[in-house]
């Protein structure tokens, strides 16, 4: 987390947007404003820690629709909704879609900063997890297909003989593959190899 987080403020009300940017700036955040969801989508956010402060109702695609679009595009920034006239239905939908918070305007400074803190923390966590997963994936990516099969079977706790039988290869060949994989993944034991494979599966599943 060496980079400073960037906060994206999406609100069609220029006055409100300016004041938010001003406040965030004064509080030491780096922030960027967008007048509409379209503006935001046209300028893909740099891969930096951060979050999105999003007005729920805007001309054109609404905040909820932006949230969905971000999700589709794989932009993993956490979203905080700001609304002047939120209702239960839209807040429930927003939260289900992964919004971090749902704030009613006018929002108090402490509430906003608390929400931002939570969002950035979550973003940081996400980011760490994603990096770990990426590293793991990169390490696993160096394995050959056969080595991968062997590693998966080992992770399942199968014996060499079983693996050789299932894959229709000699037991000695299994041992060779496993040793090669352990070398590539830099693990010292079969148990460690299994834990690693399990971890990757968990990260990928999220």
């Amino acid at each position, binding site marked *: 987390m060496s980079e400073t987080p960037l906060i994206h403020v999406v609100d069609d*009300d220029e006055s409100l947007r300016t*004041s938010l940017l001003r*406040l965030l700036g*004064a509080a030491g955040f780096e922030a960027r404003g967008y007048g509409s969801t379209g503006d935001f989508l046209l300028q893909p956010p740099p891969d930096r820690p951060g979050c999105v402060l999003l007005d729920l*109702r805007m001309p054109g695609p609404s905040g909820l629709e932006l949230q969905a679009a971000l999700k589709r595009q794989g932009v993993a920034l956490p979203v905080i909704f700001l609304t002047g006239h939120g209702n239960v239905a839209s807040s429930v939908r927003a939260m289900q879609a992964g919004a971090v918070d749902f704030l009613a305007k*006018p*929002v108090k*400074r402490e509430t906003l900063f608390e929400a931002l803190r939570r969002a950035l923390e979550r973003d940081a966590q996400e980011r760490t997890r994603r990096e770990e997963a990426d590293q793991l994936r990169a390490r696993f990516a160096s394995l050959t297909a056969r080595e991968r099969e062997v590693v998966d079977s080992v992770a399942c706790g199968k014996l060499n003989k079983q693996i050789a039988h299932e894959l229709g290869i000699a037991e000695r060949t299994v041992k060779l593959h496993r040793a090669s994989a352990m070398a590539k993944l830099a693990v010292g034991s079969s148990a460690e190899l299994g834990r690693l494979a399990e971890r990757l599966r968990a990260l990928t599943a999220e």
Partner: protein
Amino acid sequence: MLPLSCTEDLVHLPALGPLLVSEGVSDPPSRVEGVSFRRSARSAGRWLAAAAVAALGILVAPPATAAPATSNVLVLYSNERSLPANLEGDRGLLQTVRAPVDRPAMLFYESLGAPRVGGPAFDRIATAYLREKYASRPPRVIVAVSEEALDFLLRHRAELFPEAPVVHTGIDQLPLRSLAPLPADVVGVPVEYGFSPTIDLALRWHPRARRLVIVTGAAEPDRRFEAQLRNDVSAFKDRATTEFLAALPMHAVLRRLGELRGDAVVFTPGMFQDGDGYDLVPQQSVRAMAAAAGAPVYGAFSSHIGTGIVGGYMPSFEVMGRQAGLIVSELLAGAEPGALHLPEFTPQTLNVDWRQLRRWGIDESAIPRDAVVHFKPPTLYETHPNEVLIGTAVIVLQAGLISWLLVEYRRRRVAESAEKTRRLELAHVSRLAVAGELTGSIAHEINQPLGAILSNADAADLILESGTDRRDEVRRILADIRRDGVRASEVISRLRAMLAKHEVECKPFELNEAVREIESMLGTEARRRGLTLAIRPATGPIAVVGDRIQIQQVLINLVLNAMDAVADLPEERRTVVVSMESAAGGVDVAVRDRGHGIAPEHLHRLFDAFFTTKSNGMGLGLSIARTIADAHGGRVWAENGPGEGAVVHVELPVAGATGGPSAVSG
């Protein structure tokens, strides 16, 4: 020449018999007539004596072959029968004389010609004449008209027809008393004469009159009138000064009368002779005086009515004649003269000439109810009673109907006014309801600037805390805060304007501007509902006179309805368009949506109160819209769009355009 004039007549024959003889009159006929009863009554004592002698004569000489089958009545006039007074009396007499069927009454008329002729010699001749003439048909009853005739009969009755009872008529109470006591078979109803009531009346009817001018003549009866009048006027000396024009030449009288003005009234019984010795017919002398006089003239005899006099209290000769006729009938039927119940006297009645009343400005209300009004044009009712009654009935009915309608109209106005008040109340309630519907948008509109203010204040706070000198930025922040504060307050005042219960205004306002305000009020709502609201203002300014808030209310209502209509449709159809176009004599504001349209069976009921197709609607919005449009001289109607959706039009008159309200009030 025979001394008497006579005619005969059979009762019930309508026409009078011809004047057979006219005797002893040297003057032309016009100078003969017009003698009043009063004068006659005073002058003929000798005549009566002569007549009585004549009657005695007849009695002495037994009647020749009589005609027992008839009831002969002899009417003996003191003066010429042709005098207006006598003709009037005769008319009355003929009206009432009735004879038994088996003996029809035969009327014979004789005249003594007083006061022109007379004297003992005449009496003798007259008596003999009558006795001889009626010897074969002696009268069963004799009627003595006026004093001279009665006097004559009383004196000569014994020589004439002593058996026949005498009925006198037209004789004043006073001279009658001088003749009294009358024999039991001489009966009649005396007449009440008197000038004072007439003079009193004249002075009352002309309150400005200070001079009472009395005209009398030079003949013997004239002098008697003068004497009586000089006696009578003493009662009026406090009310007017009295001037007598007595026994003056006629030309002098006329000149003096002509000089009179509004401060005088004239009374005259007429003249038999003027100061130059000319014989006059009293009626004609009065006619000449009334024509010449510059002041109202009052008279004493009913025969003078119509000559130009205003009127006076006078006995009616016709009434007297009728009275005498009744007595004659009783006697013919066999009644005993002494057994008759007769009134004490025939009263004077006030006779007036309607034309003279008008001429001298006498108020109709001053005329006593029992007065006889002559020459009053018959009223329409008198000439056409049925038509007048029907017409009156129609008018009364119509008036009743109109009154009823007016009352109903007023009640309706009151009801309408109450209804209008209720409608305005409803309009207000409806605005509250609209505001309730817009709560979300309103909250958003207010919260946006408040949020900005809060964030800006927080930012300034942090900047100041940081200790760095960033005054320019703080200044900008403060400017923004101010601007947002104004923005929030504008929203609130707009809201207040819409929600306040205000008096209806009638001011000119710019419609485009009013519609743009609606856009800013409803734009947020449109975004909140995720639909597009487009406003297409007119190219030029449109001045409308009326209540801006109410017109906005109408449009807000229509736009919200349109928004409801497209709520559940796909995004591309969630559109509401408000456009303004000039129409004949005004502007047409159309609110279009792309919804499902209005069911044809609902189109005509759309603007009825409490008609709604919404589950939670009250059905008031459109009916209030119509009320408001009506109140502005406009109208509102709905139709389905050409392809899809509905269009609601509001047509309003434009200020200055023909037919539109141009006056500015309030």
